């Protein structure tokens, strides 16, 4: 048995992190803000602070993504841990944003609804909570567009 995390610790899925660790990426997670390399024009979400193609010649700036895209592939998760256990069965998907970058997200829809190529859009959702009296935390998920 792993002991219950203290209140200062956020638990996401089986994923435990300090408030600071979540806060640091809050703008990215809340608003789908990623980055873009002005040298090659490539978009990054999840954000990267260093362009893997241009490396030292790269120049990274923040970028607000439109929040629309399509399903590249998916699975229906029947067995999970932590906060996600309560959501089973749920749809997990790799989504390609219109700007060309890909991310992994919980897709909020009926499990029979999802298909490869399905258009999706971003929504602001509660991601989980740290027990009944701890912090509630939020971020971006996707729904059918």
């Amino acid at each position, binding site marked *: 048995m792993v002991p219950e995390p203290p209140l200062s610790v956020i638990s*996401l899925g089986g994923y435990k992190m300090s408030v600071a660790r979540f806060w640091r990426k809050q703008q990215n997670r809340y608003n789908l803000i990623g980055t873009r390399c002005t040298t090659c024009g490539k978009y990054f979400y999840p954000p990267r602070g260093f362009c893997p193609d241009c490396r030292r010649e790269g120049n990274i700036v923040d970028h607000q993504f439109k929040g629309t895209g399509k399903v*590249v592939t998916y699975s229906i*998760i029947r067995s999970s841990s932590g906060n*996600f256990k309560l959501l089973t069965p*749920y749809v*997990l998907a790799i989504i390609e944003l219109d700007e060309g970058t890909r991310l*992994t997200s919980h897709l909020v829809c009926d499990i029979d609804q999802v298909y490869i190529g399905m258009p999706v859009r971003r929504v602001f959702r509660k991601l989980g909570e740290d027990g009944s009296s701890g912090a509630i935390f939020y971020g971006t998920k996707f729904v059918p567009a």
Partner: protein
Amino acid sequence: MREVAVIGVGCTKFGEKWESSFRNLFVEAGALALEDANLSGEQIDEIFVGNMSAGRFVEQEHIGALIADYAGLATDNIPATRVEAACASGGLSFRQAYTAVASGMSDIVVAAGVEKMTDVGTEVTTDVLAAAADREWEGIAGITFPGLYAMIATEYMHRYGLKREQLAQVAVKNHDNGAKNPNAQFRKPITLDTVLNSTLVADPLRLFDCSPVTDGAAAVILAPLERAREFTDTPIKVLGAGQASSTIALHDRKDICTLDATVAAGNRAFQMAGVERKDIGFVEVHDCFTIAEICAIEDLGFCKKGEAGKLTEEGQTAIGGKIPINPSGGLKACGHPVGATGVKQVYETVKQLRGDAKGRQIDTEIGMTHNVGGTGATVVCHIFGRV
């Protein structure tokens, strides 16, 4: 660089070993390897140990020193180093040991791998394994490891028309092989129906598409080839070694269905060994899920992309087939103690090449191993041959 040979191998039985502690496991495997090589402890120059997550599985770090101590080698102050690359920790431990001997830095080197996974509950295990993916951007989305490989399977089946039955045949074949391996966790043959009627874990993957949670350890001993005959009549030479990295997150791969690190590590090992695909008698591949074996066969270059399902269905990957895959039973039937798996693959390969794989023997001169960390962010391949 010096030529290097494996002179001794040891492996515990794999399974849910409630009676064995973390330290019992590696001491057992190490003792078996030393006995096999006819060596005594003071002849060892250096130890490498592959271990993914003792910190979370048994709340113990500083594994190198612990192993040296409990193997009775701390009194000689022998250097011991832990190596970590998630499920490829074992393969990487072997590579480090190989490099140490090849470079001339050390002569007699142990490459070990160990994982004790059953001292925590299944939910914690699921979470520990998820740490092999990207915590910040995959973990937060609710991934599980079966879920990630399931997303590869969904796209693969969509693109190449792989049939559900072909995927199930991977598990059936590996259970057939595992039944003939005394160290395997599962020694019972299964049928396609066993797989197809098992519980869904992450669609399209079912319980029997997944490797189990396992305790176990393996150890092998390396020496310069020129000294190998001092210890054994059947040294097995390391012909080629390849390691490669790719993106930590599956969503960042150029192609979801190709483990590009497998392609790169495989090509590097083949190039170094100077052998062709047709020269390889069998491969121990990283079948953490059935779809992983399908991808491995293709990405290592044994058939074209999209053809491994048919190859499997036709029995060409079974013992006696054109390219036998996982004679040990693979991760699926032999079990998958994550840090130990890569070393167990070397153990099986050496047993096969010596002609000691009773009941599952393949008559060949050359064998290969393929060990994957995460969804393919680290891959380690080795090619071995008789001397």
